[in-house]
């Protein structure tokens, strides 16, 4: 160890003494000069305090001691700080905690070595100091090694600033997300309110459409391709007589009571869909309560947005009354023609009839006065009766066509037929005509104008008689039997040559006759007018096996009334 004086430091005895005084209690050594020191060293044969290396120069001593003390103080402070930090940061990873503690130990030991450096200035505890340094070295190496091993991991730990930046970036992202979410929420709100508005509009327009469909006076309905009901308005449901729940998705044959009618309706529906064209047609449907109704139906194929055929839409308007009006007008024009004819007939025929009655009556009177027992008297009475009856017929017909004084009373069908036959078939038996009358016992009472219906029967029977004039084995059969809808059907069959189709079709129109130029041909026309006015129908068809059949129907009186 070489000690060289620090340049500038005084080496005079003042310093030495002062220091020696200061160190007095510790040592018995005294610096005299370099030679003396060398001598002392060899003299004591043990370690020298390190202060000797500093020549006990107070200024140098103070510098070393002060510096080491401050370093130790700082190192211990660091150790305590780290220890305190580790103790308080419970979340540290174990490896980091170990590193920190190792570092604290390393710094603490470094501090200790500096303390020892102070100590060895006076006490030559170099052995202890060496061991302390060895321990410190070991801990330092361990710390360095550990630090070295841990460095890549530590490198990955972001710095606070980086973290701060990252946090800021995160916060910005979050803020942006929040803004986006708020915008989205607003958009959703707007969309929702728009949706609600459009939904309400749709509801309103649906309700309006529904109201129009419901309040329409006619029938409105829609069916799918298989004829199942998709829609039916109130009027339609009222006609069907069933609530919507019972007819929804059903076909006509499932809710209409009459299979024949439903078949007709469904066939027409198919025509509309197969023909793919709008069809306008009149449909006749018998309603159990409202009777026969006539509908003017417009049926349109139903297509969806891309043009596929989905079924049909039908609108039906009741034209029953219109048809009746038309029929009445037709009937009325016929009636007024009949009325004029009847008025003329009444006037023109009543005059000669009056004359006949008067002449015969006068003649009878004269004859009775001369020959009271004359067999002519009774036929003359008959002649008077018949002329009066002719006048009565004309009068009734006139009254009837002018809708005046038509007298209707309950009459027994059997009696009417019997009476008509007794007159119309006079002399027929002599000509070999076989006749039969068959009245079904269920056919009892009709409410009619007796004279008018007798006239109809008379006309038909006389027609039949004329038809069989040249027929071998002529027969006339009269049958009265129940017809549908509470009516009676009276049929007059003959075995004559029958009627040509052409004649049969026009037979009931005025002035058409199968008798050629013979006869006026008003008989059947008048008969038709009378029957229809009674709510009946008259028609003709070929008799099976040859000949003709004339039929007419009359409504039966509601309650049985004693026959007269």
């Amino acid at each position: 160890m070489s000690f060289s004086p620090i340049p500038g430091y005084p080496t005079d005895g003042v310093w030495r003494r002062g220091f020696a005084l200061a160190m007095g209690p510790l040592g018995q050594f005294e610096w005299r000069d370099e030679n003396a020191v060398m001598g002392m060293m060899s003299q004591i044969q043990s370690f020298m305090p390190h202060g000797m290396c500093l020549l006990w120069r107070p200024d140098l001593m103070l510098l070393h001691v002060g510096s080491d003390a401050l370093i130790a103080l700082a190192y211990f402070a660091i150790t305590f700080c780290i220890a305190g930090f580790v103790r308080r940061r419970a979340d540290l990873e174990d490896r980091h905690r170990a590193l920190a503690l190792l570092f604290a130990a390393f710094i603490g030991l470094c501090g200790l070595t500096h303390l020892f450096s102070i100590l060895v200035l006076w006490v030559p505890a170099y052995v202890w100091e060496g061991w302390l340094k060895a321990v410190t070295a070991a801990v330092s190496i361990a710390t360095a090694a550990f630090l070295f091993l841990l460095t890549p991991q530590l490198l990955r730990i972001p710095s606070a600033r980086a973290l701060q930046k990252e946090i800021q970036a995160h916060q910005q992202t979050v803020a942006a997300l929040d803004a986006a979410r708020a915008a989205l929420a607003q958009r959703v709100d707007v969309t929702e309110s728009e949706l609600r508005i459009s939904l309400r509009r749709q509801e309103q327009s649906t309700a309006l459409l529904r109201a129009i469909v419901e309040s329409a006076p006619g029938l409105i309905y829609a069916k799918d391709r298989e004829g199942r009901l998709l829609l039916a308005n109130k009027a339609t449901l009222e006609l069907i007589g069933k609530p919507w729940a019972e007819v929804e998705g059903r076909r006509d044959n499932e809710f209409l009571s009459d299979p024949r009618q439903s078949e007709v309706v469904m066939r027409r529906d198919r025509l509309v869909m197969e023909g793919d064209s709008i069809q306008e047609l009149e449909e006749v449907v018998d309603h159990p309560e409202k009777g026969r109704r006539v509908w003017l139906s417009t049926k349109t194929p139903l297509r969806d947005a891309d043009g596929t055929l989905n079924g049909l839409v039908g609108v039906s308007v009741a034209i029953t009354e219109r048809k009746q009006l038309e029929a009445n007008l037709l009937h009325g024009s016929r009636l007024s023609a009949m009325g004029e004819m009847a008025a003329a007939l009444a006037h023109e025929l009543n005059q000669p009839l009056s004359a006949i009655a008067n002449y015969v009556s006068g003649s009878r009177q004269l004859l009775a006065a001369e020959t009271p027992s004359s067999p002519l008297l009774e036929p003359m009475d008959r002649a008077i009766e018949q002329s009066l009856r002719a006048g009565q017929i004309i009068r009734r017909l006139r009254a009837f066509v002018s809708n005046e004084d038509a007298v209707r009373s309950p009459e027994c069908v059997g009696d009417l037929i019997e009476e008509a036959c007794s007159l119309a078939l006079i002399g027929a038996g002599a000509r070999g005509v076989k006749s039969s009358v068959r009245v079904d016992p269920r056919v009892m009472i009709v409410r009619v104008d007796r004279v008018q219906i007798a006239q109809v029967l008379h006309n038909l029977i006389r027609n039949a008689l004329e038809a069989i004039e040249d027929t071998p084995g002529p027969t006339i059969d009269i049958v009265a039997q129940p017809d549908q809808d509470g009516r009676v059907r009276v049929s007059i069959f003959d075995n004559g040559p029958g009627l040509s189709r052409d004649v049969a079709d026009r037979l009931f129109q005025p002035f058409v006759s199968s008798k050629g130029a013979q006869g006026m041909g008003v008989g059947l026309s008048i008969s038709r007018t009378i029957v229809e006015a009674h709510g009946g129908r008259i028609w003709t068809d070929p008799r099976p096996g040859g000949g003709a059949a004339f039929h007419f129907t009359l409504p039966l009186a509601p309650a049985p009334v004693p026959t007269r």
Partner: protein
Amino acid sequence: MNRARRLHVVDDDDAVRDSLVFNLKVQGYSVSTYADAAAFLDINVDARRACLICDIRMPGMNGIELTRILRDRGSAIPILLMTGHADRSSIAEAMRAGVNGVLEKPIDPRAIVSAIEGIDRAEA
């Protein structure tokens, strides 16, 4: 049977008039005939010993108009009108004009006799 009344028959139809006269004469009445209403108005009759039997519908003056004129003149002659097409309104009109009865054609000869007898009874 009182056949004291003279019957005056007014009808434009010859056959009706002639047959009526024939019949009524057989019944024992004396009968005068006229082809139109004006012809009847030209003569004077004793209302109490006469009866007018007249058609309603005639060319010129009709039966109801004749009735009105007679009643306007204060004549009380019994009047029976005949019609070939009786409707309520014309019957009502005839009754208001002052006829004693309306007969519908073709007229039952017995009805005329009973009508005249009815008038006789009413005036007796």
